[in-house]
């Protein structure tokens, strides 16, 4: 039981339950858009906690963080503040799949996020535990705390992570908890279920932590990070320096035989963990069992911060009994003498089946109740923050009486994420992959701000001063592209020698720089060096890289745009709210049930529901037309 201070009966515009990555973005977005906002957290000491890996970003996820930054969210900026090592991934592959990943100082991440929250106008932070939602006539009216007090609210955002009915499993031990050392929320899931929301159960696992003084770094590969680290946020100031290295080691046959010998104690065999876990983050027990032919699995050894000795063993997720975890770690090169500080554990928790949400993240059943983050069956700080941002924006817009802010799949990874969640539901904790985005070549790390900052400005979240920086970039890019198109490169012997070295055909006559840049093997610096001038205007390295991408991808980008145009009619045909599907003749029974449940906003969304065929969509479009005509008459 917590004792919460009184809120003097104030009716808040937005109450956010949960101070994790989703909750922080929600609260900041709503407050920055001018709403009186309350952030309710179980513990003031746990705001913006990183309970799992000490890193932000990665392939697919890093793009989400960039998009959050472009719209006016905080995750990118805060990651830069707390960053102790930055790495650009997929540099040997194409720019569309490049992404940043930052190792962060966990404590610094929490502290600096809390500092921002505390300095934000319209935002009040309160320690307390929500026990239920208050609903009247299918509309939320507030939150009830476990001490019986009530906080009235126009809108509520639930961002309570893995706390709903949470249980932790380590080996044979199994006890209620939201995270290690924290009690779960037991009353809230009951309240949600009573309000008619359907819950599912997932599990997730985290990795063991060891003492940094006890590793043998000489037996591992050192990863110092990028030589010239980039920043996540377009708006961060100053130069970033990598401060702490990571290490890489591999399990071996010895590790695997230890695991095999003790497999009967693994929750896989004992069945002590219920709920479905993510396929992309299997425990080491499962990896060894499912891939018997692999003689090694990587283990990434990552520091948790500058002022702590904890190292995180990424790749050794497990909830085997603690003594077995130690055997497994000690069998692995470089970790022979490692001292365990905290064992890996599995957590299982309730989530709300996300196809009960609208694209705005508002529940269909209860007006003005929004859900964001792991409660919707996702995993990851970035996925959580992205949803938190959108829920915060839409709660604020609901208070202001505005239309929901919805990003399309062709606009942003955030759009893909939310459309996937609400249209298809989830059958494992959802993580972003670039392969989920059908327009991946358009949704890049490098152009996130060009894509989204105008929208962020438009909804009143991204400040004008930041938007001006983005506009400046766009002008610089435009100038550079113009310059590349109008500048001729001559076939000098030096250039042709360079081209030959790169396996590229030599030039026989002058050619526009832009044309030459379309060759996959030629980069902009080759050309600048050859001409002997620097690029015009304000083009820094980022803008130069972007110009190259725009030129090299041009044909593909055009094709994706055409594909988007072809789909436009489906995406633009809205289905009126409350449309009933159950008596639609000519639509299969299964499709009717799915449509009725999902209540898609557009024909495009309807076409993505599993079990709905193209023929069903045609018939549905006929009915919509009929209804439209009937209304017009």
């Amino acid at each position, binding site marked *: 039981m917590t004792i919460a201070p009184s809120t003097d009966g104030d009716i808040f515009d937005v109450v956010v339950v949960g101070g994790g990555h989703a909750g922080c973005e929600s609260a900041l977005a709503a407050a920055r858009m001018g709403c009186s906002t309350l952030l309710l957290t179980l513990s003031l000491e746990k705001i913006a906690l990183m309970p799992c*890996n000490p890193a932000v970003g*990665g*392939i*697919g996820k890093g793009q989400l963080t960039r998009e959050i930054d472009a719209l006016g969210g905080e995750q990118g900026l805060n990651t830069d503040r707390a960053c102790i090592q930055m790495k650009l*991934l*997929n540099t*040997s*592959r*194409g720019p*569309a*799949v490049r992404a940043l*990943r930052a190792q962060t100082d966990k404590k610094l991440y929490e502290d600096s996020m809390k500092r921002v929250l505390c300095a934000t106008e319209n935002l009040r932070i309160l320690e307390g535990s929500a026990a239920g939602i208050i609903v009247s006539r299918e509309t939320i009216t507030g939150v009830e705390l476990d001490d019986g007090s009530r906080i009235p609210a126009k809108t509520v955002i639930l961002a309570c992570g893995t706390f709903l009915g949470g249980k932790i499993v380590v080996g044979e031990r199994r006890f209620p908890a939201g995270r290690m050392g924290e009690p779960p929320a037991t009353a809230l899931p009951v309240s949600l279920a009573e309000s008619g929301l359907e819950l599912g159960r997932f599990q997730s696992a985290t990795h063991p932590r060891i003492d940094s003084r006890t590793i043998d770094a000489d037996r591992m590969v050192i990863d110092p990070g990028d030589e010239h680290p980039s920043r996540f946020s377009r708006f961060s100031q100053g130069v970033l320096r990598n401060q702490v290295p990571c290490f890489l080691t*591999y399990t071996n046959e010895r590790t695997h035989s230890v695991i095999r010998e003790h497999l009967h104690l693994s929750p896989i065999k004992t069945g002590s963990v219920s709920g479905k876990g*993510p*396929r*992309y*983050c*299997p425990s080491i027990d499962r*990896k060894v069992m*499912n*891939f018997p032919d*692999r003689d090694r*699995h*990587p283990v*990434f050894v990552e520091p948790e911060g500058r002022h702590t000795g904890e190292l995180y063993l*990424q*790749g050794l*997720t497990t909830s085997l009994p603690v003594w077995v975890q130690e055997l497994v770690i000690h069998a692995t090169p470089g970790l022979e003498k490692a001292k365990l500080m905290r064992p890996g554990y599995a957590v299982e928790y309730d989530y709300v089946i996300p196809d009960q949400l609208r694209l705005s993240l508002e529940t269909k059943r209860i007006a003005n109740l929004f859900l964001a983050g792991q409660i919707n069956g996702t995993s990851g700080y970035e996925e959580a923050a992205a949803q938190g941002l959108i829920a915060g924006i839409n709660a604020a817009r609901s208070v202001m009486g505005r239309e929901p802010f919805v990003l399309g799949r062709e606009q942003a990874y955030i759009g893909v994420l939310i459309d996937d969640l609400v249209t298809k539901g989830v059958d494992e904790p959802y993580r972003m*992959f*670039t*392969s*989920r985005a*059908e327009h*991946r*070549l358009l949704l890049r790390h490098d152009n996130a701000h060009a894509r989204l900052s105008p929208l962020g400005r438009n909804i009143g979240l991204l400040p004008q001063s930041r938007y001006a920086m983005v506009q400046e970039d766009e002008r610089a890019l435009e100038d550079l592209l113009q310059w590349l198109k109008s500048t001729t490169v001559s076939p000098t012997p030096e250039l042709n020698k360079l081209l030959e070295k790169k*396996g590229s055909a030599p030039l026989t006559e002058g050619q526009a720089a832009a044309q030459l840049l379309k060759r*996959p*093997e030629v980069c902009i610096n080759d050309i600048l060096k050859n001409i002997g001038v620097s690029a015009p205007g304000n083009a820094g390295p980022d803008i130069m890289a972007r110009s190259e991408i725009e030129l090299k*991808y041009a044909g*593909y980008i055009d094709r994706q745009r055409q594909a988007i145009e072809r789909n436009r*009619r489906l995406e633009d045909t809205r289905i009126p709210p409350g449309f009933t599907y159950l008596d639609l*003749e*000519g639509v299969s029974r299964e499709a009717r049930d799915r449509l009725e449940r999902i209540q898609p906003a557009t024909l495009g969304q309807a076409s993505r529901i*599993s079990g709905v*065929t*193209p023929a069903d969509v*045609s018939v549905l*479009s*006929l*009915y919509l*037309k*009929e209804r439209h*005509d009937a209304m017009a008459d």
Partner: protein
Amino acid sequence: MQEFPTVAAISTSLGTGAIGIVRMTGPDSIAICDRLFRGRRGNLAEAASHTLHYGAIAEPESGELVDEVLVSVMRAPATYTREDVVEINCHGGPVAQQRVMSLLLAQGAGLATPGEFTRRAFLNGRIDLVQAESVAQIVSAKTEAGLRVAMSQLAGGLSREIGSLRDDILGVLASIEAGLDFSDEDIEGMDRQATGGSLTGIAGRLQELIESAFVGRVLCEGVRTAIVGKPNVGKSSLLNALLMRDRAIVTEIPGTTRDTIEEIINIDGIPLQLIDTAGLRPAGNEVERIGVERSRRAISEADLVLCLFDGSEPEDDHDRALLTSVPMDRTILVINKADLFRGRQPRFNRGLLPAEPVVISAMTRHGLSQLRERISGLVLGGALPPLEGPMVTHERHKQLLEQSLSALGRARQGLRVGLGEELVAEELHGALTALGGITGDEVVEDLLDRIFQEFCIGK
């Protein structure tokens, strides 16, 4: 009112009459037709609504005439679809209709899906849903009747083959995507050469499938059949005998692209298109031109060869040469002129023939029913090579397969010239999406399944 793209379709059932209608609906239909139509009285653009125009359809570039036509121009909104509609009444039978269709597609019309005209009529408020549904039922019923034989035999095989191709492309894509999405997790990048090799194999099978668009062509154009034999062996008599029997001659087009005569005859519901039958109606000096070379060409283009010998004469060099040039697996050997040796052994040496011939008399029609049985047995019995495997019967499917193949081609090219993996992946996604247009499967989930099955992902 919503604007839909302009689409066209052949709207008469195939092989049911000499006059076929190609119909086009949509905002550009009059303009598209204008580019192909050579009329006596100027452009269709100026034509009043609901008027009929006599003229010809011609290739826009070469000016070559394709068919003599009557075109009806009907302007929105007083039309079946409430859009501009053009109907081209072709006189040249199925072959001409097909060519007119391809010209319209080349000019920018889309291919109408089954029931598309009705759908638009409904969407544009011309008919109500009950009417639309009943029309749709008729459309599908007709199609079913027409395709029953082919579909029951082949549909299963086709979707299996497409499913297996899709699976193989997914496998390749999964190996690329795993490298892209999990490059930081000890996943090896793709091996360009091996990937190229797999794609070449897949492209070959896709190509075969496209080439198997045989039944589709059979239903539209007929089984390409060559009747070959030396002069005066009775080729034209055989044709006439087959025609009289079936009274199914549909058309006779003085060949416009090649100097051939094309005929459609109907054997037990199987349309046969006689190709390069010059010499069937020899006119004076033309007889001279019919040589072995000529027959060779006809044979190479044919799905089915009827190889005729004169039973009343001993074999000669011409007969022997012919026997070496026919593909025995799709040839029916025929000894003609049985009326001249009546029950006796033919003078022609049967021992020369590698397979049992059918003995007929085109004059007296003796043996024709056996010949017809042999033809339908060969076509439907699976003896013709394309009928054995899975087969494409819909033009739309063929187009999608071609799209898929060309995307695969770009992916292979990309692998050769060192294009980024994400761009190769883009092409493979395109190839899968095209196949999905036939099978209706969704890519992303299946792809992730493959990645997690085959690669050990997870930090």
